[in-house]
């Protein structure tokens, strides 16, 4: 099934509030091998001028990925994750994410291009605190290949 051509320019509703915990930041830092104390030790983070432990720079993806998943599951979109390859990603970071932040992401589709049986979907997810402070803008391009036999 080809993607709806009018997807470009669409904005989707914000994700439910995501409570960032110290444990999640530590687990993410462990997963990417970031061994700085500021990811795990609140005292070390405060000594470095932060209110609480600091997330690694790609942590906003956790919230942005939720927005992408909701977008792909939208009845107007209907993309299965297994048919998607991440083709490009960029973060513009306003400030590091800390434990205690409560975040939502709002995803919009910037462009949809077709290339050799693949749809290239350029998205922009804005990550904000529930108080409205922007912490990051995550730009993702997703390459979607319709499964074979389903490309009519």
């Amino acid at each position, binding site marked *: 099934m080809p993607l709806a051509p009018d997807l470009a320019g669409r904005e989707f509703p914000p994700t439910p509030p995501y409570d960032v915990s110290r444990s*999640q930041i530590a*687990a*993410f830092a*462990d*997963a*990417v*091998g*970031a061994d*700085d104390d*500021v*990811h795990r030790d609140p005292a070390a983070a405060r000594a*470095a001028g*932060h209110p609480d432990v*600091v*997330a*690694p*720079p*790609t942590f906003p*993806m*956790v919230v942005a*990925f*939720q927005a992408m*998943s909701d977008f792909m599951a939208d009845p107007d979109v209907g993309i299965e*994750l*297994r*048919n*998607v*390859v*991440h*083709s*490009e*990603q*960029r*973060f*513009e*970071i306003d400030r*590091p994410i800390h434990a205690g932040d409560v975040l939502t992401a709002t995803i919009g589709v910037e462009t949809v291009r077709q290339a050799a049986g693949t749809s290239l979907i350029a998205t922009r997810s804005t990550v904000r605190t529930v108080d409205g402070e922007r912490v990051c803008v995550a*730009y993702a*391009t997703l390459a979607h*290949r319709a*499964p074979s036999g389903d490309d009519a």
Partner: protein
Amino acid sequence: MTVLESGATLGPVAYVVRRSDLVRYAGASGDFNPIHWSQRVATEVGLPGVIAHGMYTLALAGRAAAEWAGGADRVVELGSRFTRPVAVPDDEAGVEVEVVGDVKPTDQPDRVRIDLTVTCGGQKVLGQARAVVTRNA
């Protein structure tokens, strides 16, 4: 601490990636796309086998940039294209991903750009990978 002078070359640093790392990253990030843990699904969709999350590879590049910059909080921009998949074998050895940085100026004196060359088996796996970081005081 690394001195981020324009023209400097940073690294290389090498990181080993194993299947277990991908499973752990899936859990920590919420990205459970089966192409990152199921050989069956990965080959069904035409991949050479289980591949690393692009975001995992980019996170390793970001880790290198953060260490060079003197802290994760100094990274203000990070991104790349995912040009070649990193196939991760189902063995204990895994694969090695190598990161080299080249420091470039920006139009802001307190920020530099680090152009990141990220390779696996001698082949570039990320395209136009770069971080913008605030410079050490």
